């Protein structure tokens, strides 16, 4: 047995101090790794954010909210994530290992709550997979028109016009799901490489777009739009058309507040370095710095892009274009062939003069959604695994293929359910899909907030430092509760905004309510069924798996 006094220690153990009088001696054992530092953790956080989705959310915000502006929502959403960042820091200190809200809930609230939440998350993530596929499908006409422009092919450009019906979108969503499932059957290493390159492409599209906006003037944009649309007065005609169709212009605080949930969704992923909590050097500090840097970078980037869009394209035009395409698509189509849902990417497309950037902009959203879905599929299958190991689902669900080492059964299940959701989201009016996604992520954030709030009450032992004086201990625990409580309140505010604006964020039709009940209620229902079936078979009682063991 070799001994050393290195700085790196396994999960949960104390870290080495700089002073020789307070150092930690670590022996040579398996699992001791050189930890990830702030740059690596920041990279993980930023790579988890789908940057091009910003344009989808900008566009959706302009469409759904009259007088919407993005400055306040972008900053407010960043504040919500910054608050949540502190809550997750405490959760990371308590449970310094890979996991997420499912793990936190099962450790801190109760294993039963964790199991139920885990099932819910698995269903929700499967739904999100289908909504991402739906986004990619919705952008297919834009992609084809961009590729048509790049290759000077009217046939390709016009093909997109035949793919706008609900059934076409549904089938395109299925194709996206099949592509994702097929790619997932490769080894995890290959999948990781595919994700990496897809991320590189979308970041490249984003950077090129910033350059286009920065180096072109408002007059350049007006002129480019006229050329692209083969309509010399396209810019003014779109604004005039929107006015005559009752589109409201300008900005208001109420609209900016209502749009915050969209922007909360925008930042989703920015705290994901906590998923590698076990591998971070000085986890709490590294996580905090990495998350704060990532949030800061995104705020600067997105606020900057929005400012550029306002300066080069104009808020009035963006509001007119996004809304006219919805309220009077025929009138819009007579002025321009630019897709009304394309937002910033569309503006980049018409400004670009070369085929390479056109291809980059055209394919950015579908490729980004495939990257996101590949990552989501991995997480979803992992959550399904956990449920199978908890005997809530058949163990066969977690079967690993001997040839490809991939979870083939779990991928198949997710694919089948995801395809079902694809048709549901495409054919049934569920209100705004973006909003439903926002709701799910707000609920996950809520789960994190609740876990942090309950941490000092349920599992103070996980965050207490031995030898801490009683007064300091109480103060420390109060601080954790406070941060958890504020995060919970902000998550509740986000949920409230989503529910309060049901006319935009999802009408309460029987279909939408049924879908929400299925998605959110699947966990408890599966738990009750699994427990009942096992009781009838005289198998081991499921509650035994969650029984707290008394150490004394």
């Amino acid at each position, binding site marked *: *047995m070799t*001994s050393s*006094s290195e700085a790196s220690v*396994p*999960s*949960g153990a*104390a*870290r080495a101090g700089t002073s*020789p*009088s*307070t*150092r*930690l*001696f*670590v*022996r*040579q*054992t*398996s699992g*001791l*790794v*050189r*930890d*990830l530092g702030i740059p690596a953790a920041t*990279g993980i956080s930023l790579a988890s954010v789908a940057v091009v989705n910003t344009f989808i959310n900008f566009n959706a915000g302009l469409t759904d909210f009259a007088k919407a502006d993005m400055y306040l929502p972008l900053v407010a959403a960043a504040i919500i994530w910054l608050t949540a960042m502190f809550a997750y820091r405490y959760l990371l*200190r308590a449970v*310094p*290992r*890979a996991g997420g809200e499912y793990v936190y809930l*099962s450790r801190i609230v109760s294993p039963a709550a964790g199991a139920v939440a885990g099932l819910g998350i698995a269903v929700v993530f499967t739904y999100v997979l289908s909504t991402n596929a739906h986004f990619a499908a919705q952008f297919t006409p834009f992609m084809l028109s961009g590729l048509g422009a790049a290759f000077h092919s009217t046939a390709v450009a016009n093909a997109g016009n035949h793919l706008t019906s609900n059934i076409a979108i549904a089938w395109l969503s299925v194709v996206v799901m099949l592509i994702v499932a097929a790619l997932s059957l490769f080894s995890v*290493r290959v*999948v*990781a490489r595919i*994700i*990496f390159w897809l*991320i590189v492409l979308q970041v490249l599209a984003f950077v090129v777009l910033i350059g286009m906006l920065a180096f072109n003037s408002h007059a350049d944009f007006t002129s480019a739009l006229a050329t692209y649309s083969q309509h010399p007065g396209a810019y003014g005609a779109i604004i005039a058309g929107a006015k005559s169709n009752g589109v409201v212009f300008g900005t208001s605080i109420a609209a900016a507040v209502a749009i915050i949930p969209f922007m909360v969704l925008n930042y989703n992923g920015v705290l994901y370095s906590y998923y590698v909590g*076990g*591998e971070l050097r*000085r986890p709490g500090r590294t996580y905090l710095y990495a998350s704060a840097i990532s949030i800061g970078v995104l705020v600067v980037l997105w606020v900057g892009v929005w400012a550029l869009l306002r300066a080069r394209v104009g808020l009035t035009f963006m509001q007119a274009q996004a809304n006219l395409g919805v309220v009077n698509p025929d009138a819009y189509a007579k002025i321009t062939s630019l897709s009304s849902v394309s937002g910033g990417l569309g503006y980049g497309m018409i400004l670009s003069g070369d085929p390479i950037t056109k291809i980059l902009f055209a394919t950015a959203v579908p490729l980004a959604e495939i990257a996101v879905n590949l*990552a989501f599929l991995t997480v979803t299958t992992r959550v399904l695994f956990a449920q199978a*190991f908890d*005997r809530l689902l058949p*163990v066969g669900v*977690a*079967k*690993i293929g*001997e040839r490809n080492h991939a979870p083939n059964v779990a991928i198949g299940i997710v694919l089948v359910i995801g395809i079902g959701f694809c048709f549901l989201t495409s054919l049934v009016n569920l209100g705004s899909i973006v909003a439903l996604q926002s709701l799910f992520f707000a609920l996950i954030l809520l789960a994190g907030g609740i876990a942090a709030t309950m941490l000092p009450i349920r599992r103070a*032992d996980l965050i207490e*430092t*031995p*030898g801490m004086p009683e007064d300091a201990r109480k103060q420390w625990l109060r601080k954790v509760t406070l941060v958890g409580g504020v995060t919970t309140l902000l998550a509740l505010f986000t949920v409230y905004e989503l529910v309060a604006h049901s006319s935009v964020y999802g009408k309460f039709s029987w279909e939408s309510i049924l879908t929400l009940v299925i998605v959110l209620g699947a966990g408890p229902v599966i738990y009750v069924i699994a427990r009942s079936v096992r009781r009838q078979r005289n*198998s*081991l009682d499921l509650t*035994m*798996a*969650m*029984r707290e*063991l*008394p*150490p004394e």
Partner: protein
Amino acid sequence: MWGRAKNAKKRALRIYFATDLHGSEVCFRKFLAAARVYEADVIILGGDFAGKAIVPVLAAAGSLRARVGGEDVTVPEADWDQLAAGIGKSGLYPVRMNEAELARLSDDSGELDRLFRSEIAAQMQRWCDLAAERLDPAVRCIITPGNDDPVDADAVLAAHGRVECPELELCDLGPVTMASLGVVPTTPWDTERECTEEELAKQIDEMLGRLPGGRPSILNLHCPPYASGLDDAPELDATLKPVIRGGRPSIVPVGSHAVREAIKRYQPVLGLHGHIHESRGAQKIGRTLCVNPGSDYSSGVLRGVVIDIAQDGSCLDFLLTTG
């Protein structure tokens, strides 16, 4: 998978298996309590019981000073028990010393090695005594080592009357026979019980060659089978840093080919594994149910698995537990 026909058989044996406690006092106490809570006939601790780090506690001028959880802590000397319990909870060894002793340990790796060995042996002695005190006499307590456990610790286990340590031996559990081995294929950390895949295959073969023909068996092998889903761990580069691909740590299978081959060839009813803490799960390889309950020792959470065995040695049911 576990239909009515199978469950029509009666349970002859209930096993509780946990692994990779890494010195966690609270997890070991929970391990002992598991016998009562889960009504187990045999409790098995499958290796890597030894802790990984020593926290020096400096005694000076009536107070004790240590660095715990990244923070400097100073308490009155009278609070030693409380401080030691807090440090020991997550598997660290608190050791009282003065500045001179600390300086010597920092400079002398041999001295530090001896201190680790003595702390681990002392803890094993305490744990065995605790098992004798707390366990129902009818419950068997089996502790086998893993690659992170010093070889000296086996002697402590072997000498204690209440605990069994059938390392590299066959152990009769009633309806089944269990074969145990804590050695793992070579790791980047050069730990105490490592060998090549070929040597591991040879050791497993020699042990299983002694199995009576047709007798149902359990393989208690610390290392999980390769690419079984029970052996997924972060990929490391040459400097032992996790490899990041696509914004996530790259996860690769790190289990043993020899273990996989042995399971495929001998088809025991059950494979009990550990080693890879984050790879909790259950998989079937042929007819064999392989289980890795994972480990969350640093959070004071005991992960384990309850397994019911029928009179004919077949596996009736299992349940992964978190307690």
